[in-house]
């Protein structure tokens, strides 16, 4: 029977069935960072265990790293202690660490693919829910909790229940000024923030095939916002071309062997799925969230929903969202005043995101009073962007250009909203308090839409602002 990619990778990595019906799954690549790993190392130490496969674990720091001048060090003693603890653990257990001195530091989901660590047909785990990003390469990637980080460190395996697989087929092509970010926000709005619970999502169809690898990462990245822990795209020629030549990519004779394996893991035509949904790319507009979860969004020409048609818990949750966001029912999304603009994160902090924005900035300036910041996803993204002179365009237009890290995506470092500031953000979560202030407000959108909002000082249609 023809199989999908998920089924094949799951099968080939299943070590055994556990007595409770779960599977013990072998993990090919384990990525760790400073926030969710120190406690896990503590747990293995407490139990007198060691790291089973240090050569398949890689570390970086991203969540709490300051994005202003690193030479100044950490203002925050606890942040510094977490970084020290990671460095110490890597040294003690012989784990490769990509810190700032390596020149390869960055957001864990940016550097995995960039270094060629993320490969098709591999299982990937990381103590971070956006691990689904790596699924863009046809790997099966799981976001895990800290006790599971402990499990992978100690055994190189995880105890997991096998999810069902839903095919998300998107036909047609995205219009001008419509990006992968809009596509995934649209999917989440349609299927709901919990629509994916119990599922792995396979994204496919003509519009997915047409996306670059970086755009595919944006799609898979936000699977978790739709409730799906795993999201992936079956590997194709584009996938292989992206990997070729990267530091950890297979070389010479290994390359041919790898290609053979990778091809064998691709979804076969007429493979069956537990569920299928279909979308038309042409329906999708630049999309903006107006609420406090990533499913509460609308096309740029849309309005905040009306309360009058709702009742019960749907009404209560809309009221809660609107009172937090300080928006009114029926209000146009266009024209909503913003105070902060943030371009970055593991969703949209890659080179192509920055190139797209830079290519439109000529003769535009960030509106007065708007704090606008651009944070590259990794040191490599930063180098490449600077080699192309993108940073000059950003600075000239009035954006700040920062050092790589998660930054204002979750604001564990000094980059935070103040009070109830409203931020147009290219990140992935608009939860209450997400960007560092317990009353701070977030509207999610594509990087170019963030740039348009920064220039206008209000939510605007990038297609008009930049005459696309």
């Amino acid at each position, binding site marked *: 029977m023809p199989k999908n990619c998920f089924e094949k990778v799951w099968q080939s990595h299943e070590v055994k069935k556990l007595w409770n019906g779960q599977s013990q799954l072998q993990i090919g690549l384990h990525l760790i960072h400073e926030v969710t790993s120190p406690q896990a190392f503590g747990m293995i130490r407490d139990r007198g265990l060691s790291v089973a496969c240090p050569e398949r674990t890689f570390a970086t720091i991203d969540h709490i790293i300051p994005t202003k001048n690193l030479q100044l060090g950490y203002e925050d003693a606890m942040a510094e202690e977490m970084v020290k603890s990671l460095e110490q653990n890597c040294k003690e257990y012989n784990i490769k660490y990509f810190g700032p001195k390596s020149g390869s530091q960055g957001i864990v989901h940016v550097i995995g693919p960039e270094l060629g660590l993320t490969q098709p047909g591999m299982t990937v785990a990381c103590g971070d829910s956006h691990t689904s990003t790596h699924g863009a390469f046809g790997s099966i990637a799981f976001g895990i909790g800290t006790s599971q980080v402990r499990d992978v460190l100690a055994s190189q395996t995880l105890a997991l229940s096998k999810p069902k697989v839903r095919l998300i087929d998107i036909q047609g092509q995205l219009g001008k000024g419509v990006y992968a970010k809009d596509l995934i926000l649209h999917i989440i709005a349609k299927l709901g923030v919990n629509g994916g619970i119990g599922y792995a999502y396979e994204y496919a169809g003509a519009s997915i095939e047409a996306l670059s690898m970086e755009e595919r990462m944006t799609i898979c990245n936000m699977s978790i916002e739709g409730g799906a822990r795993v999201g992936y795209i079956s590997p194709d020629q584009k996938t292989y071309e992206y990997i070729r030549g990267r530091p950890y990519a297979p070389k010479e004779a290994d390359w041919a062997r*790898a290609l053979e394996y990778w091809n064998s893991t691709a979804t076969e035509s007429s493979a069956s799925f537990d569920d299928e949904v279909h979308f038309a790319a042409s329906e999708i507009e630049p999309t903006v969230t107006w609420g406090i979860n990533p499913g509460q969004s609308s096309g740029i020409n849309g309005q905040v929903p009306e309360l009058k048609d709702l009742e019960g818990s749907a009404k209560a949750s809309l009221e809660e969202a609107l009172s937090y966001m300080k928006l009114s029912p029926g209000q146009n999304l266009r024209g909503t005043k913003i105070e902060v603009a943030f371009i970055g994160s593991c969703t949209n902090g890659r080179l192509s995101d920055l190139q797209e924005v830079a290519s439109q900035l000529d003769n535009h300036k960030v509106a007065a009073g708007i704090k606008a910041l651009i944070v590259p996803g990794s040191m490599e993204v930063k180098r490449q962007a600077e080699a192309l002179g993108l940073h000059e365009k950003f600075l000239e237009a009035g954006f700040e250009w920062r050092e790589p890290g998660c930054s204002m995506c979750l604001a564990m470092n000094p980059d935070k909203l103040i009070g109830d500031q409203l931020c147009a953000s290219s990140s992935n979560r608009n939860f209450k308090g997400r960007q560092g202030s317990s009353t701070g407000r977030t509207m999610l959108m594509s990087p170019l839409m963030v740039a348009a909002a920064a220039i206008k000082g209000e939510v605007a249609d990038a297609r008009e602002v930049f005459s696309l």
Partner: protein
Amino acid sequence: MNTAQKLPTGQIEHISGQALCLPGDDIDTDRIIPARFLKCITFSGLGQYAFYDERYDKAGQPLAHPLNDRPQASIIVAGANFGCGSSREHAPQALLYHGIRGILALSFAEIFAGNCNTLGIACLSLSFPDQQAIFAALTSNPAELIEIDIAAGTVTLGELQLQASIPQSMQGALLAGSWDPLQELLEAKDLVLEKGQTLPYWRSFQHN
């Protein structure tokens, strides 16, 4: 806040205690534990920060909040998609150290439920009418004890006896006391080595 408390160990057949209601859907892990409290290298001090931004005002003064009003409660009753968002285990750990041992919700986010399982916090799903019935009962008698029977999957409070559902893997693990899977994973050490031989990429990352 229960500081000197016993963490779950061994077989878990019943959970009983007072409950607190957290109505509303999609309560995410950023709300359960705001990101600034993720700066820690052990989990044990996190209980005091559970739902911090909703429990305290800017000056650190306690607000009216179910966790403040019922500090002794060990069971949460919640809405749909509870624990969505970030995979941070800090969220269930904060609840655990706050004293929470069971959660009844319309549904759970998957990573969160898995994390709870590993810590021995039982997660059971309720139907909407049953959740409403519990809310109503606790509104008239907030101190009413809830009793969760893991084997039967039932929830009892006062006159009410309700059927909840719990994934078989979680139910079996709690009952057998094997909710922490690590020991079983380690036992397969040889199988893991063999598996490595069959995966074409297993030897690919050699350190320079």
